[in-house]
Every structure is written in C-alpha cells, then in structure tokens.
C-alpha cells in the first residue's frame, strides 16, 4: 500500500500514486515518511466532491473579507492553485438490534387563546392557535437491523466535524475498484474503539424510530437495554479540499473545506508586517509635519503668521504619531484571537 505519515501533523495518508517528492497535503510539510502497512484498506463507498472549484474560490473570497491587513498571500487564486483533494475515512456499521426501551413521547396539540380589541366603540375578537406538547411515557420492544450507522475512524473526527460541519451520508457512491485519485487519510481508530460511538448513533436512530412507531412528535429521555448482533463494518470516504496560505514568516496556514457542503475552516490571520508598513508611513508623515512645524516656528519671529502654521503642523504631527501605533495594535489584537485548531502545525 502506498502510505506515508507526516512527521509534522502526524496524519497518515494513502495515495494510489504517490508523488516523487512526497509532502503532507494537510500541513504541506515535506517531513513525511513512507510506511509499509500491510493492511488493505477496504473502502466501499465515498461521497463525491460536489463543491466546484469556482465555489471554492468564492468561499475563500468570503473567508478573507474583513481581515485587517490581509496577508499578501491570502488570495483566492493562490489557494485555488494549491488545493489538494483529500478523503477522510469514516466507519459505517450495520447491526441487528434487539432492545427493551422506554421514553417520554411528546404529542403536539393545539389550544385556542383569545385577544379582545376595543376600537371605535366596537369589540373584535381574535382567536389564536398555539401548539403545545403533551408528554406521555411509552415503553416497548425493538427488533430491527440498522444499516450505515456512522462512527468516527479518526481520533480527531469530532474536532474536524466541528470545523467542517456534518456530511449528509444519503448519497454515497460505491468505490467499485475505481482508482481513488485524491489523498485518503488512513484511519487511526480500530472498529472496537469506534463501536462505542456507533452505539450512540444506533441509540439516536432507535429513539427516532420508536418516536415514529408511537406516532409522537417528540422524544425525550430515551433509555434502552440493547443487544447487538451481526455487526458488519465498512469504510466510507468523505471529501475535503485542503489548501493553505503563508503568514508573514512564511509559515503555512491550512485552510480546509467540506467539499460536500462548502463549509470552510481555517485560521484568519492579519499581517503584522503589512501593519508595520502602515505604521512606518504614518511615522514618516509625522516626522515631516514635525519638521515643518519646527521650520515655521523658527521663522515665526520674522513672520508671525507662520507661528499659527507651526502650531497646526505640530498638532497634526502628534496626531499622526499617535495614529501610527494603531495598525500594529489592530493586527496584533486580531491575531491574539486566533485559536489554532489541534492538528494544525504551521510549518
């Protein structure tokens, strides 16, 4: 198997045809190491890249808007040029479930309330309908087979999901032996670890099915005593666009996008260097103004009118000098709010 591990971000990838000079498509580190993994990855289904590159361009444009002193490298064209397609793995489990369950089921009902309006010596009644919920206990037995219950195959799956949002697993396509061109991240959890998360998914599906069975509109406090059988595991691939831009020090700042929904996640960084240039420009202007102020001050005994000009220029120079501190302050303040997500190691 053509697999490698990134020494920088520790992500493991598989690619059908590894490039001659391998790099990490996530953090762009060149510190990667080929690994010999004998295990074959049995990908059965994948979600296609449904977000177009044009849309990627538009989302990056939106992402970079309102960043003060935007880094020169943060241009949609740059990010689009560097984009890599990555598949993230996710387990799907099928299982027979038998359980005794109990829950509070909520049934909607409508009540009528009234408003009485008195205007121009006449009364008018307005009837309003309001939906309320009647909660009733229900118990039952369940014997069903659940298919394609997702479970995380990566340790950082939750962190990634919080950044990239959820994927709709309703329209998967079978891999069917086709060559998978993009990078595929190799799972770092085994099925026994993922089972606990799968049980949570099965619990949610069962609760929803029991709600439907009871004809209820809501379900709460769903408890069960389940037994599972006939478990079958498969791997599914979900698509991500990975790109980056460079900060002032030439470090990579990764940008990831959910290639199914278009949700974009990345570090929004303000260029301190750019801010410093603005500061320097303002200081130069302040110096010129101060020089002019001194000049007019010197000649003011001869031409008293220049005294006024000297005072005005002095105040302008002070204003510019004070204002010069703002660009750097703003940029640093903006950057202080950056919370670099786990997994990112700008190189």
């Amino acid at each position, binding site marked *: 198997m053509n697999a490698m591990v990134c020494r920088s971000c520790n992500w493991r990838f598989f690619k059908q045809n590894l490039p001659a000079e391998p790099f990490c498509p996530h953090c762009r580190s060149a510190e990667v190491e080929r690994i010999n993994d004998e295990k074959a990855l049995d990908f059965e289904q994948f979600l296609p890249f449904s977000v177009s590159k044009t849309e990627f361009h538009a989302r990056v444009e939106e992402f970079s808007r309102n960043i003060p002193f935007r880094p020169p490298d943060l241009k949609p064209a740059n990010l689009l040029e560097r984009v890599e397609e990555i598949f993230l793995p996710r387990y799907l489990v099928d299982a027979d479930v038998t359980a005794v369950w109990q829950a509070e089921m909520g049934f909607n009902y409508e*009540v*009528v309330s009234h*408003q*009485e309006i*008195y205007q121009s010596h006449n*009364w008018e009644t307005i009837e309003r309908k309001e939906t309320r919920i009647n909660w*009733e206990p229900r118990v*039952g037995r369940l014997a069903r087979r659940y298919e394609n219950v997702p479970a995380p195959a990566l340790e950082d799956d939750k962190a990634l999901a919080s950044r990239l949002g959820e994927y709709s697993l309703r329209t998967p396509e079978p891999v069917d032996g086709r060559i998978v061109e993009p990078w595929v991240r190799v799972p770092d959890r085994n099925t026994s670890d993922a089972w606990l998360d799968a049980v949570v998914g099965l619990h949610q599906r069962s609760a929803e*099915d029991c709600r439907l069975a*009871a004809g209820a509109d809501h379900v709460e406090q769903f408890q069960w005593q389940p037994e599972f059988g006939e478990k079958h595991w498969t791997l599914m691939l979900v698509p991500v666009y990975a790109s980056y831009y460079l900060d002032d020090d030439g470090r990579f700042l990764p940008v990831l996008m959910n290639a199914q929904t278009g949700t974009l996640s990345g570090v929004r960084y303000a260029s301190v260097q750019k801010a410093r240039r603005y500061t320097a420009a303002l200081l130069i202007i302040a110096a010129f103004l101060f020089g002019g102020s001194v000049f007019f001050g010197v000649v003011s005994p001869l031409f008293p009118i220049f005294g006024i000009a000297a005072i005005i220029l002095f105040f302008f120079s002070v204003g510019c000098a004070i204002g010069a501190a703002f660009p750097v302050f703003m940029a640093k303040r903006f950057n202080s709010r950056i919370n670099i997500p786990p997994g990112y190691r700008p190189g």
Partner: protein
Amino acid sequence: MSEFPPKNYIRTASAVEGIEVFAPRPLEPDESPEIVDFHCPQCGATTAYSLEDGGLKCAHCGYFEPPAKEIVGRGAQDFEFKVEALAESAHGWGTRRSDLVCENCGAETSFPPGTLSTRCAFCGSNKVLQREGLQSFLRPRFLIPFQLDENRSLKIAKEWLGSSWMVPDHVKSNSSLEAFTPVYIPYWTFDAAAFANWKAQVGYDETERYYDASNNEWRTRTVTRWRWEDGAVRQDYDDLLVSGTQRISSLHLRNIQNFKLSELVVYSPEYLAGIGANAYDVPLEPAWEKGRYAIRADVYNLCHKQIKGDHIRRFEMALDLAEESWRYVLLPVLINAFYYRGRSYRIVINGQTGKISGQRPVDWIKVWLVNVLMLAPGLVISLLGLVLQFGSPEAFALFWVGIGLLVLGLAGMAVVLTKASGMDDE
C-alpha cells in the same frame, strides 16, 4: 425494567415494523357500567341520595351509606381550550334517545338525550347514566353536594314569599306549595389571566378668564384640555361561572350564583341517585364567549378607573387572555313551581348557600292602593291650597307644599311600580 410490559401498560398501535409500543392504560376506561342502579344491600329496595342526611338512604329499612366525599375545592383539575374539546362540545347531545334495559325489572326504558340521572318508570329504581358524555373530558368531573334539604328550602321559600307586601296574602299563607325538586345544574367554570393595554385621549376641565369685548367685561369659562394617555391592567380571573343550561332563567341563576367552589367534590354517581341532572346544553365555546364578554366588560371598567380626567374619547384597548382553562361541574339547585290565577311561577334556591330567586305574583290591587295612598296627601293638600288662596293669598304656599308632596308621591309610585313589575320577571 424488571417487568415487561410494566403493570397497567397496554399495547398500542405501532407505525414501524419491528417495534412494539406499550402505553399506560387510560385512567378512565369504559369499564364502569352504563347505568348504575341503587339498591339497598339490606332489603334490596331502591336507595336514593338523601338531602337531609347527605348520603344514600333506603326509605324502606333506613339503611344509610355516606358517599366517599373527596373534597378537591378550587384545586379541581381544569382543562385547556384544546381545539378538539371545542369541536366535541359543539356537537351537543343531538336528538338520540338512549334505550336501555332496566336491570332491576327488565323493562326497556327510553331516556332523553343529555340525561345524567333518571328513574325507571316501571319499578321506580333510580339510575345514573355513566356514558352519556361524548368524550371523557366532557363528562362532569366535580360537583357540590346538596347542603339544603327540601324542608329547609320550603321554609326559605315561604319566608321569601312573605317578605314582600306586594305578594298576595293567599300566596303568603299558601300551604299547598309543594316540595322543592333538587336538580344538578351544569356549569362551566373558567380561569384566565387578562393583560390589557389601553390608550385614550383624556380631557381635563380648566377654568379660564377671558375678556368679552361685546360686553366689555372679564368672564370665566371652562375649557377642556385633551392629551393622550395610556396604561395597562392585569387581572386574574378564577372560576368565572357560566351556566351550561338554557332550561332555567339565566336571570334567576345569576341571582343565586354565590356558590362556594372550595367545596367541590369529585363526581360520584351516588350523588345523583334520585336527583334530577342534565348535561349541558350550552356548549363550551358559546359559554366561554359569554365568560369573555364578562371579562372584557370588567377589564374595560378597570381601565376607565385608571383614568383620572374629566372626559375620555378615542378609547382603545387590547386585551390578551392567557392561561385560559375550563372545568365542567354540576351545582346544586332546588326548583319549585306553583300556579296562581292560571299562571306558573318558578322559584330557584341555591342548594348550597340557600340564596333564593324567582318569580312572585303581585297583588295589583294592593299595589295601586298603596300608590293612591302615596299620591293622596299631595293631591289633597295642593287642592286645599288652591281653594284657600281665594280667601287668603298666604294659603297659596300650601298649594306648593301639596305639589311637593305630589312629586314625592309620584317618585314613590314609580319605585313601587318598577319593583312590582320586576317581581314576576322570568
């Protein structure tokens, strides 16, 4: 879950294959007999609720059984205005009659719609119909038991008839006034929280001086200064009573409506044994409409009380009702009807508090005699004054005294006639 399904849970329909659903058994299963007959466990004779003793009593052997009196008072369960409740109550009782076989004598008896209690025409056994309600929530759940017996009510009625001089003496001493009939009247009780916002132009009278150029003098006049004002009123309504029947005059029911709902008890058929009771014939929605009219009139007055000005115009008010709820109860009333000169007069007494209202015949001869007596002094004195003034001009003052007395007499006559004409209002 140690036991499955848990006790008192029954299987219900499931919309999903492979899932069984069990729900708590309904609290009010239709397991109660359609008709409850009341027999004495000692001698087998028919028992009936005794107003005097406050329980089931056998007139034959004297057996007595007090009812399980579960007082719930104002804490009695009330219901929300569910859309389905309004729709169901509007269906009414229709015209269907219940044909049921008397378990006592085997005779087939027909009951009119809406009947809650009756007596078998063949064996005289008392019956309480349990399933006449269209829906469980539209059955009476609470009632106030009778606290007044027939004798006491008869005494109250005689005192009431005798309390007015306008009632004919023959009626006052009427020993033929028959015993009162106890009946349970259906009532709706309503709760609501009212929030009202009002605004109006309020006028304040002010006196100002002005110069009248035509008369060349200073005068005063009153002018009204108008300004917009607004305010808010919050008022809770608890157990607003609206009668659920049209069979008894709403005027008289309103007069005796001082029921103490703190003495509400949980409905039990024993209370209705041998006592007339009918279900509502004013459905929930029209009854609540009446209740809302009363609330809005009350809130309207409360808003006006907040206004301190001398005049009000362009008054507008928006009244929001929240936490609207209702209860269906049976309240005790004793009814009597008697005939006087070919006309029927009805008396109703609150079976809990003893308050009385009704129609009373009027002895119009007596009334007109009193009117004449009231007018006579004025007429006589004024005429005397008129005659005597020819001899002595000072006697003309006597004429004016007579006119004054005549005016007083006319006012008294108007009062007496108004009262007399209202005595037999239905």
